[in-house]
């Protein structure tokens, strides 16, 4: 595994790897999405209490899972960046943040849409909703921080520090529904004793979760390639300015003699 990471540490090799792999991950994403939607919208039973509204769970829960997983990946990558100084870690963190923020926003909005007819309210400040909202703010702060630096390397390291600081929020989100007994439903899938959800509902959930996971992987690969190209372009531009400047200086020296 460490050989794999060391192999990919060279940005050129990583770019070639990403260029080859991303069409396949996109394809897997589309397949998972179609299967998940078919199961979720058509071939699964309605809830006996909520009726058809339970189908919102098939976008809300995978989006929430992805928002947490992406932040967890960003935390590990930030540790790699600050401690091991792996050259790829900063790149991947910067490219993951917009995707994570989008998933968090989807989770918040679909949860709100689910909540209005089912539990009667668009929003309530219970522990899980509040801490996911805090997660969304931390994502936004990360994106702002990375872009405010002129020196990109410094910006990435500063954002890594911020990611580590915000990582305390993840256990609060996970365990908040156990610690406080308020509106949001307690854990029913990832808890001790195994999932307590019926298999007919588990299947579309897993397919949608896999679809979102491969969405993340595909667009992480595409976005990081774009970043590598952008850096190369900037370097060429700076090199061109240097060459141009030297030419002008040489020409003016000849003119002055």
């Amino acid at each position, binding site marked *: 595994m460490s050989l794999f990471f060391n192999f990919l540490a060279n940005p050129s090799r990583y770019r070639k790897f990403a260029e080859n792999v991303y069409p396949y991950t996109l394809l897997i994403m589309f397949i998972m999405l179609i299967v998940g939607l078919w199961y979720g*919208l058509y071939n699964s039973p309605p809830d006996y209490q909520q*009726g*058809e*509204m339970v*189908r*919102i769970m098939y*976008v*809300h829960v995978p*989006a929430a899972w992805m928002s947490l997983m992406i932040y967890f990946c960003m935390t590990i990558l930030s540790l790699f960046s600050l401690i091991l100084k792996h050259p790829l870690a900063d790149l991947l963190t910067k490219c993951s943040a*917009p*995707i994570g923020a*989008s998933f968090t*926003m*989807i989770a918040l*909005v*679909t949860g709100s*849409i*689910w909540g*209005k*007819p089912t539990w009667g309210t668009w929003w309530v400040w219970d522990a899980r909703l509040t801490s996911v909202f805090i997660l969304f703010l931390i994502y936004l702060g990360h994106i702002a921080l990375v872009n405010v630096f002129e020196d990109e390397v410094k910006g990435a390291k500063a954002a890594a520090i911020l990611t580590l600081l915000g990582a305390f929020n993840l256990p609060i989100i996970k365990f908040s529904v156990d610690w406080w007994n308020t509106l949001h439903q307690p854990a029913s899938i990832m808890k001790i004793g195994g999932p307590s959800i019926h298999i007919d509902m588990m299947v579309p959930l897993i397919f949608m979760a896999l679809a979102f996971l491969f*969405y993340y992987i595909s*667009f992480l690969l*595409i*976005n990081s*390639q*774009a970043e590598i*190209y*952008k850096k*190369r*372009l900037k370097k060429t531009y700076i090199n061109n300015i240097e060459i141009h400047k030297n030419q002008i200086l040489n020409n003016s020296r000849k003119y002055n003699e």
Partner: protein
Amino acid sequence: MSSHLIYIFSAYLFSFLVLMILGLKIYLTFCSYKNKNNNF
């Protein structure tokens, strides 16, 4: 209960719109940078 279909529809529509807009934006920036880099 079936009058709630508008909620389900809007939830799925919102999530797919967000994912599609983000995906298109990332993909289009990727394509434009890749085309500018063709002299490598």
